């Protein structure tokens, strides 16, 4: 019975929204630039996903906390300053504790600042909702972004390098599909994923 009641809880619906019905990548098609760039290896996708998840939770919580004080005219600037600060924190943290991943992600960590998911959640949700719901919204959107990235990266890494998290999984005679490591591979796999997720959630863009 508890499972059925879960469907009426607000936090549950907010989380479900971010993960499926309003998945930032598959449905809203936001944050595609970084999704294409860092999905050539699973470890990069995980690091990038966790980085974005942290930034979207932290910045949304901060925006939600001070939402009554933010002057309407400077609200976009305020979001940018808050988001940029958290992104720099993530960047310094990666450089200090995970230098190899930081080098592999390169400029893309800094580019979380311009990731539309983060800005979008601040404006669309955090600015109007209390902190406890904002937390679930940020978490769900961050994880919604992360799992699509990891799934895409799984396919690309297996085909491009024959490995998962650098462990060899394909037999010795396997010929690497170099195209999967490059940008076109990202487009192919991501497009197929968006198609699958939209089919599963019955999301169709009907012409008016």
């Amino acid at each position, binding site marked *: 019975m508890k499972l059925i009641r879960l469907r009426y809880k607000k936090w549950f619906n907010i989380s479900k929204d971010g993960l499926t019905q309003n998945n930032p990548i598959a449905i809203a098609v936001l944050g595609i630039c970084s999704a294409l760039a860092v999905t050539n290896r699973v470890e990069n996708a995980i690091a990038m996903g966790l980085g974005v998840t942290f930034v979207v939770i932290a910045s949304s919580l901060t925006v939600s906390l001070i939402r009554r*004080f933010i*002057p309407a005219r400077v609200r976009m600037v305020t979001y940018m*300053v808050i988001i940029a600060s958290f992104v720099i924190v993530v960047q310094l943290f990666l450089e200090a504790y995970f*230098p190899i991943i930081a080098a592999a992600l390169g400029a893309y960590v800094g580019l979380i600042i311009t990731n539309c998911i983060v800005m979008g959640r601040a404006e669309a949700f955090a600015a109007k909702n209390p902190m406890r719901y904002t937390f679930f919204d940020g978490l769900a959107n961050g994880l919604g972004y992360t799992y699509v990235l990891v799934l895409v990266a799984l396919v690309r890494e297996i085909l491009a390098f024959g490995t998962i998290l650098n462990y060899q999984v394909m037999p010795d005679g396997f010929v690497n599909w170099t195209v999967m490591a490059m940008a076109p591979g990202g487009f192919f796999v991501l497009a197929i994923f968006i198609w699958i997720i939209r089919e599963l959630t019955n999301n169709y863009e009907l012409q008016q």
Partner: protein
Amino acid sequence: MNQHIQMIVFVLILGAITSALLVGVDAWTEERIALNQQAELQSAILDAYEIEYTITQIAAVFEEHIEIIEIEDKIFYYHRDSGSLSFVIEGNGVWGPIIGVLTLESDLVTIKRITILQEEETPGLGGVISERWYLDKYVGREMDPALIISRSPNLANPNEVDAIAGGTRTSERFEIMINEGFQSYIAVWHAANGGQ
């Protein structure tokens, strides 16, 4: 008017708090980031001499095998067992600085290994400069009288190397960077050691 003052006060407070946060995080991570960069340089040098190490004890291994000699502001990394030298070379690439480590054989003319620590060249074209398969082409080449990076090298000449396909300007700048770095360091080294 009141509204404007409120806005300015808000922006100032926001700026102060975020700056404080960033200064704090920077102070917290500064030391580790410096250590990581040092480890990157050390691993480039140890790899050139094929010395084994693990990332946790790299500093100790480095100290055991490599002597740091400073002459006239130039830092040389001297391999005690073989008498080979490594030093850091820097130059301007197409989009930003290129920093690398040049390791010479004990004759101080033959290239043992080049590692690129930092570059911002065009990915896929000039960016090939930091990849091992390209840098391996420099192994065994000689700096006498100067290294020539050419589109159609005569590999019978020991001082010619194949340029990067699609990275002509990067190749040109890399050639200048290697030769200038080599000459300035080796001149100082010979002057101090009375060699040649």
